[in-house]
């Protein structure tokens, strides 16, 4: 009796897993297939039908050339904001996590608690006060209005803190101190080289968070030429005929986009994150596994 019952459980488990796999994969497949079809085909054909490469090329061309190559400008803006913010976040988070984990100073516990609190605070809650602050500093409309806030990344501090406190033996730092290293040298020559995985991990998360942020750049930028891609996508939706029928009476001069173009734009928007992930993958995995094995 035992064997058939075990089989039954396995079958049920398999069915559940297949359901969820399909549930999450179908939208992705649809998204990647959508740009190969025309707007009409998108409605009439099967969701999994492949249109044609010709249509794909046309869609791509339409998206890229939209409004004087705006998408490329937005991509460039996104890259500047995200890489700038990421660099700042890493430069701040890694030493901060190190300090919290491996040094003793007054207020250490308080700082750690504050880090945790701001980490769980929704970033959107800070957008208005940030806007006012940036305005007062005269940075509104500059790249710093985004790079500076993106550089504030308490989650990265927390990750670095966990990493340093769990994977770097205290004796290693003691050995370096005895070997004549000052506090900066201990960090520079011992802790930092050993922190390579966590640098990648913090960098990756900071990059994704900055890249995907919509609301902050939506508030901080006022001109299409400053938009990052996420805000640009919003404008694309505004240019899509089927979502705004009233705007597009016949003979209107505005460039009309269609749903497949929007899907294409979304793919363009997520591609950089995928590429960064592929490059950082090895370091990321080792970062996430850090501490699991004993040296």
């Amino acid at each position: 009796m035992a064997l058939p019952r075990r089989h039954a459980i396995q079958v049920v488990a398999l069915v559940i897993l297949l359901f969820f796999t399909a549930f999450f994969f179908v939208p992705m497949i649809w998204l990647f297939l959508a740009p190969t079809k025309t707007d009409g085909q998108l409605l009439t054909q099967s969701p999994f039908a492949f249109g044609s490469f010709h249509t794909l090329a046309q869609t791509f061309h339409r998206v890229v050339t939209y409004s004087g190559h705006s998408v490329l400008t937005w991509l460039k803006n996104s890259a500047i904001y995200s890489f700038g913010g990421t660099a700042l976040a890493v430069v701040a988070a890694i030493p901060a996590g190190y300090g919290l984990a491996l040094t003793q100073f007054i207020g250490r516990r308080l700082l750690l608690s504050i880090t945790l609190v701001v980490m769980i605070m929704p970033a959107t809650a800070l957008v208005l006060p940030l806007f006012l602050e940036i305005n007062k500093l005269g940075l509104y409309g500059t790249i710093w209005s985004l790079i500076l806030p993106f550089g504030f990344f308490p989650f990265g501090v927390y990750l670095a803190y966990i990493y340093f406190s769990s994977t770097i033996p205290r004796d290693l730092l003691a050995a370096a101190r005895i070997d004549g290293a000052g506090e900066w040298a201990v960090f520079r020559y011992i802790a930092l080289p050993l922190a390579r995985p966590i640098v990648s991990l913090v960098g990756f998360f900071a990059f994704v968070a900055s890249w995907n942020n919509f609301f902050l750049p939506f508030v901080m930028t006022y001109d299409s030429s400053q938009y990052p891609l996420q805000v640009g996508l919003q404008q694309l939706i505004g240019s899509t005929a089927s979502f705004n029928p009233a705007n597009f009476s016949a003979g209107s001069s505005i460039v009309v986009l269609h749903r497949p173009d929007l899907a294409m734009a979304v793919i363009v928007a997520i591609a950089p994150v995928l590429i960064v992930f592929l490059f950082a993958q090895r370091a990321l995995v080792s970062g996430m596994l850090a501490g699991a094995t004993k040296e």
Partner: protein
Amino acid sequence: MATVTFDGATRIYPKTEQAAVDALDLEVDDGELLVLVGPSGCGKTTTLRMLAGLEHVDEGSIRIDGKDVVDLAPRDRDIAMVFQNYALYPHMNVAQNMGFALRMAGVAKAEIDERVRAAAKILEIEGYLERKPRQLSGGQRQRVAMGRAIVRQPRVFLMDEPLSNLDAKLRVATRAEIAALQRNLGVTTLYVTHDQVEAMTMGDRVAVMKDGLLQQCDTPRVLYEDPVNAFVAGFIGSPPMNLVAGVVESGGVRLGSTLLRVADGVPSPPGAAVTVGLRPESLFLAPAAEGIPATVSIVEELGAEAFVYAQLVSATGAGNGLNVKGNIIARVEPSTAPRNGEVIHLGVKEGSLLFFDAESGDRIRRRGE
């Protein structure tokens, strides 16, 4: 070359009452290898870390060559330390590990290479200079850790249980090598271990610690023959000294129901409760009706000798909680080893008995001893 002086050095960890190291007074002579030994938690490692500058000194002072170093950072003390887990820098190869201190000191690269090579030659690790620590065996890592210390030519070596991660055979071989190396280099060395055999075989002098207090510091022979208290007597020696509760009577000491005659006299008045110390090698198998009767529990045959673990027949339990059950260990010739369960009689070699106060554990000495 340097002398090290602990002068009332005290360390009290935050949020604790008892001092981890309590008013330690200790002198380490120039070129000497002094071993700190004691059970875990006795403060020996804390002592070492205080000297290294890794642990705060709450009271008293520590001097190297007469100069107070308490307020100096570890980097400014000119000491090298070998850690229990070696603490090799995992991202650097062996040569970089060994040369790190010189690099920090701003020594020219050519000289670093030369000195690393020289040290590697002494330790026979020249073939591994390009390897990372994780590619080395435990014994090789241990050598690299030693190499990292000697490359620097420091004033003082500190070693914190450097052999405890090695297997038994390698440990014996390495401890002789370290002792020989230390004598060749002539660098003042403080060596921490919980293993009294290591302490006895390596140390010029051995300092025995317990509960943060220095018990006795002397040469291995003096510690063995002339311990100041029951703790040192029981700690030094393998197997340890037997400590049995007794009551002084005229002409001897009563252990349970047996009166053990003591020819050279007992240093306490009749009626006094004492702890009697008997080395396993001071005991011998005596004819029946002589000596102390005991029931054999286990016999350990080691080839050249045999150890008999026995239970005193008339034991009353001993003081200091050191030997409550009346167990006694005797060294005997393998050929005469008794069988398990057998009742034997143990004689005591003349002049080998030590007496300790049953309460304090302090040694009670005979006149002139």
